[in-house]
């Protein structure tokens, strides 16, 4: 993108390699000089967080596989062997188990960022599709991995989820038997889940490569949702984006460490420390937290097949998102009504997650049905209609213009504050001179209390005509736009040095 000059290796060996395999220029062009919009805010750092989590999962997983035994009668014991006898086995295993949770946490943040800033819109549809494919693959990987410790929850989660396929008309039962490798979850199921759990991360890695490729073709979206028009509006990926990303990775790992070292079993279920028992069903079968919203949707539909369809549809609908949300304004920053519904969707997803952990009975079912209907309504009704009814705010011409407006506002605010201070000081001085009974200092204090008055007067007195009235009508929501468009994306409010 954006007329970037390709890198030429400077050493003879670099040039030699470049002619045979242009890997140096690939790395430099894609990960060093790659132009990144200046205004990216911290929500754009989760791609790097996800890459780091993927690497952590791969490394810990490979080590765990060296000590784990995929057999129905030995799997549970081998986990305890890892926890007790393998050097730092507890660390590797807790890292892998909690790592899955934090992988999903980062993924959800990453996806909601896309939803808010319209990152799925043209020309990024394919990039978005591959993201959704990664979500699907990660869910399968997470599920197969959860079965491997062969505890009660592992066993019964496997039973419940594989049984979903029996809802398929006509061939359902055969498909379930084929999936399980028998009539119920048993050793063949465990071994094939283990095999898949080792295979799927390779597929995730491949999908991630394509995802990054697609990203580097179209470039990053940014909080304004306006494409950068020149290299001036971008910064090289390294060191600017990399440095910011690495900082966030450290903060994210801090949160990860809090759970990993001090409450490694908080996110798990106690029942999974009971060895799998096909004859004893746990009172509540609950999936891991990251599946809870989907589980709630599954159980909300009274019909089995309907539930399965709804659950899969809740993810598949995301593939259509670029066309369901057809508004030409990309970023939620400029769409007040869209923004409202975005937050309602977030609340709805959290509500679904909470319902997924509750037993499917009584009032919970009704709330879950309502929340499920709302979830689909958001994508199938609200978003298309918002294209008609949302009144987007006037878009800035370019990223530079958006930032400039922000700068002007900041400067104007600073000027006004300075003006007020001067006026108040003068006022106090005047009164003191006039020989009021109160001292000047007290007057100043009293003026502080009556602040709104001078504040209201100030603009009329000191502002250049035209600049302020327009801003005043756009008022508070405008301030919010600036916040999203500029402040978060800029160097965390670092002073401007632009000439």
């Amino acid at each position, binding site marked *: 993108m954006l007329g970037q000059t390709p890198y030429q290796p400077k050493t003879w060996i670099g040039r030699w390699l470049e002619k045979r395999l242009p890997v140096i220029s690939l790395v430099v062009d894609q990960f060093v000089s790659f132009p990144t919009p200046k205004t990216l805010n911290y929500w754009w750092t989760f791609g790097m967080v996800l890459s780091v989590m993927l690497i952590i999962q791969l490394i810990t997983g490979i080590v765990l596989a060296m000590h784990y035994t995929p057999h129905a009668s030995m799997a549970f014991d081998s986990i*305890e062997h890892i926890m007790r006898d393998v050097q730092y086995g507890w660390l590797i295993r807790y890292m892998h188990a909690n790592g899955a949770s934090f992988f999903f946490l980062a993924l959800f943040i990453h996806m909601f960022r896309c939803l808010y800033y319209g990152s799925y819109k043209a020309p990024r549809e394919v990039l978005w599709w591959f993201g959704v494919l990664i979500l699907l693959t990660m869910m399968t990987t997470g599920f197969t991995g959860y079965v491997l410790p062969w505890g009660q929850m592992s066993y019964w989660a496997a039973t419940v989820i594989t049984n979903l396929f029996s809802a398929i008309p006509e061939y359902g039962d055969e498909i379930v038997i084929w999936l399980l490798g028998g009539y119920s979850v048993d050793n063949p199921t465990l071994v094939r889940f283990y095999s898949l759990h080792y295979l799927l991360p390779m597929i995730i890695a491949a999908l991630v490569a394509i995802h990054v490729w697609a990203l580097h073709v179209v470039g990053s979206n940014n909080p304004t949702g306006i494409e950068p028009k020149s290299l001036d509006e971008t910064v090289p990926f390294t060191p600017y984006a990399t440095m910011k990303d690495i900082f966030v990775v450290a903060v994210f790992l801090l949160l990860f460490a809090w759970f990993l*070292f001090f409450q490694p079993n908080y996110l798990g279920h106690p*029942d999974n420390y009971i060895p799998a028992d096909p004859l004893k069903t746990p009172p509540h079968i609950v999936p891991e937290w990251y599946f809870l919203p989907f589980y709630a949707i599954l159980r909300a539909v009274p019909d089995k097949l309907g539930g399965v369809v709804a659950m899969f549809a809740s993810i598949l609908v995301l593939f259509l998102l670029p066309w369901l949300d057809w508004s030409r304004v990309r970023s939620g920053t400029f769409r007040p009504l869209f923004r*409202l519904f975005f937050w309602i969707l977030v609340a709805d997803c959290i509500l679904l997650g909470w319902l997924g952990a509750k037993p499917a009975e009584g009032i919970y079912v009704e709330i879950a049905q309502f929340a499920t209907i709302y979830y689909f309504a958001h994508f199938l009704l609200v978003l298309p209609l918002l294209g008609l009814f949302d009144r987007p705010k006037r878009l800035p011409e370019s990223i530079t213009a958006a930032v400039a407006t922000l700068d002007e506002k900041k400067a104007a605010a600073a000027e006004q504050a300075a003006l007020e201070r001067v006026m108040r000081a003068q006022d106090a001085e005047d009164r003191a001179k006039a020989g009021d009974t109160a001292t000047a200092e007290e007057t100043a204090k009293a003026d502080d209390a009556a602040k709104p008055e001078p504040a209201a007067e100030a603009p009329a007195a000191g502002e250049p005509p035209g600049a302020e009235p327009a801003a005043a009508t756009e008022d508070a929501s405008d301030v919010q736009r600036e916040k999203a468009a500029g402040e978060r994306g800029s160097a965390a409010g670092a002073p401007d*040095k632009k000439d």
Partner: protein
Amino acid sequence: MTSKLISAATCAALALVLTTATTPAKAAGESLKPPSQYWSFSGPFGRYDQAQLRRGFQVFREVCASCHGLKYIAFRNLGEPGGLEFTEDEVKAIAAEYTVQDGPNADGEMFERPAKPADRWPPPFENDVVGALANNGVAPPDASLLAKARAAERGFPSFVIDMFTTHQEAGVDYIYALLTGYEDEPPEGVEIADGLSYNPYFLGGNAIAMVPPLFDEAVEYEDGTAPTIDNYARDVAAFMMWAAEPKLEQRKFIGVWAFLYLAILGALLYLIKKKIWRRVGH
């Protein structure tokens, strides 16, 4: 701004729904919530109380071990750091008090011999069926993991607060509550089958197959700790936590340093990032 307000209101409404929907209502057959106890090993700086672990081990050996196994614990574990830390000789002596099956020998026969430190804790019953026959029809579960495998649901808002206080002691709270919670007579209207006992904390529905195991002065403590049910339950619960999580001290010790390291690293990275971005005009 308005939309922010409305979204905040939505969240508030949601929170209200959450709290009202989770107001505890104790229906018949539901178990009581175990109250939180003080544990020396809670929190990021928690450590096992070695004397307590040894007392708990004594209670386990003299009372619980007649029915409950401890299969993931080998005698050598009793000498490991961050636990009971018996000396090598003490571990050998303890192991020698137990017999384990070994073999086959040169004649093809299985034989019994005194345990060595490398041996695992021998099972109390040949198999679960024998265990169930001897215990009101329910095989006593292995005790090695119980402190992590049992817990009453914490509910809202505790489960949110727990994230910040690193509460991981729901299992031991439960064990303590269960051991001290037996009631001689079930409340009116509650029928308990023959041989079972009434315990309002029991997760499996108030009628428990384990007969009240502890009595005052059932175990003679050597360190002067009062020989009460309360102390026995507390000590054996702590011991069971160690049995379930023998690397807890190592984990928390590394954790504190890892956390500090990441915090300082994060702060430094932030400063570098800030300095780099200062070059950019925008």
